[in-house]
């Protein structure tokens, strides 16, 4: 490229050419390089940010659900325990009621039986007393013949027997 050289420090048409060239290059690079690349990266950044945010949101939601479920499970476990406790208590109360009732009944039965026995005893004693009285009367009348007034002597004999029998028939 041998030819005429221009001066080293010389303003010429190149000045305007270079300004135009720079503006053209700016427009080309802006359109072809900077705008698409930066837009693309911005879009991707927003996308990644969005998915990270979404994942975080889902995590939070899952955490919420988890604690909710744990609380529910704990509540139902507690409820189950409560039910068992209640049932046990009820059963205990019922058992003691039954036992108490049975005891009461047994006591009543025993009391009735005692009463019966007492009554029977008394009846038997009275019967025996009557029998002995009449036998004694009979024997006495035989011995003393018609002399005895059965009405008077009956009470006399009975009194005697009572006095004797009180100690003899007690047991």
């Amino acid at each position, binding site marked *: *490229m*041998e*030819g*005429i*050289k*221009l*001066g*080293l*420090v*010389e*303003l*010429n*048409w*190149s*000045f*305007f*050419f*270079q*300004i135009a*060239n*720079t*503006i*053209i*290059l*700016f427009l*080309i*690079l*802006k359109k*072809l*390089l*900077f*705008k*698409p*690349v*930066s837009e*693309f*990266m911005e879009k*991707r950044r927003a996308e990644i940010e969005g998915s990270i945010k979404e994942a975080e949101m889902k995590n939070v939601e899952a955490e919420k659900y988890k604690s909710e479920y744990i609380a529910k499970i704990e509540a139902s476990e507690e409820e189950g325990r409560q039910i068992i406790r209640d049932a046990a208590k009820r059963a205990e109360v019922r058992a003691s009621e039954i036992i108490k009732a049975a005891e009461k009944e047994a006591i009543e039965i025993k009391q009735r039986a005692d009463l019966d026995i007492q009554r029977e005893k008394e009846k038997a004693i009275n019967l025996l007393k009557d029998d002995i009285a009449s036998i004694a009367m009979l024997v006495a009348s035989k011995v003393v013949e018609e002399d005895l007034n059965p009405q008077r002597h009956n009470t006399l004999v009975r009194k005697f027997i009572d006095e004797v029998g009180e100690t003899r028939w007690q047991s």
Partner: protein
Amino acid sequence: MNGGFGPYKVIELPGGIVISQTVTVTWLIMLLLTVFAYFASKKFNKVPDKFQNVVEILVESIYGLTKQTMGEDKINFAPYMGTLLLFIGVANVSGLFGLRPPTADVNTTLGLSIMTFFMVHYNSIKSNGIKNYMKGYLEPMPFLLPLNIIGELANPISLAFRLFGNIVGGLIIMVLLYGALGSISTSLGIGIPILQAGIPAVLHIYFDLFAGLLQSFIFTMLTMVFISMAMD
């Protein structure tokens, strides 16, 4: 070499419009960046491959740098800052491929810094209102108005010549070095300039890669700082 270190004149259009080497190399760089941009954003997947990763890191770091330097609300400047960074970076590195860096031409650097200048003042007026913008020149004291104006005008010039000086300095040193190594080779009686292989590589790494990328970064950062300072 017909003297000087300026760019070659490639063609002269009717009307005296000269197209220099600077402009043609710029066109090449534009083509390269356009092809890169086309393939970079052609097939974008959700799960990036290696190339896509590189593109994403590039774009993301440009946006991050803009956000960090200018603030969240001025993120819309990121494509322009990215263009500046890529264009100046590739232009500075193009010296490695035997091209004359377009940034070694004051027309390019002044063009870029004038654009920065206009963006600074346009955005300052837009966000502060014309009244506050004018008032800014009278601060901290009204008699400092001429100094403020000179300061504002100095910005694009210093911006342009910083970049230009760095790149053209490297270019001149490299040209001189190649010349010197060539003449040493001949004076040693070697027909082929064998010393030109290898030795300049270290300086290429410094001037083209290190200083080149650093200067593209500095230019972009300063543009960002000027604009955001003017807007706040």
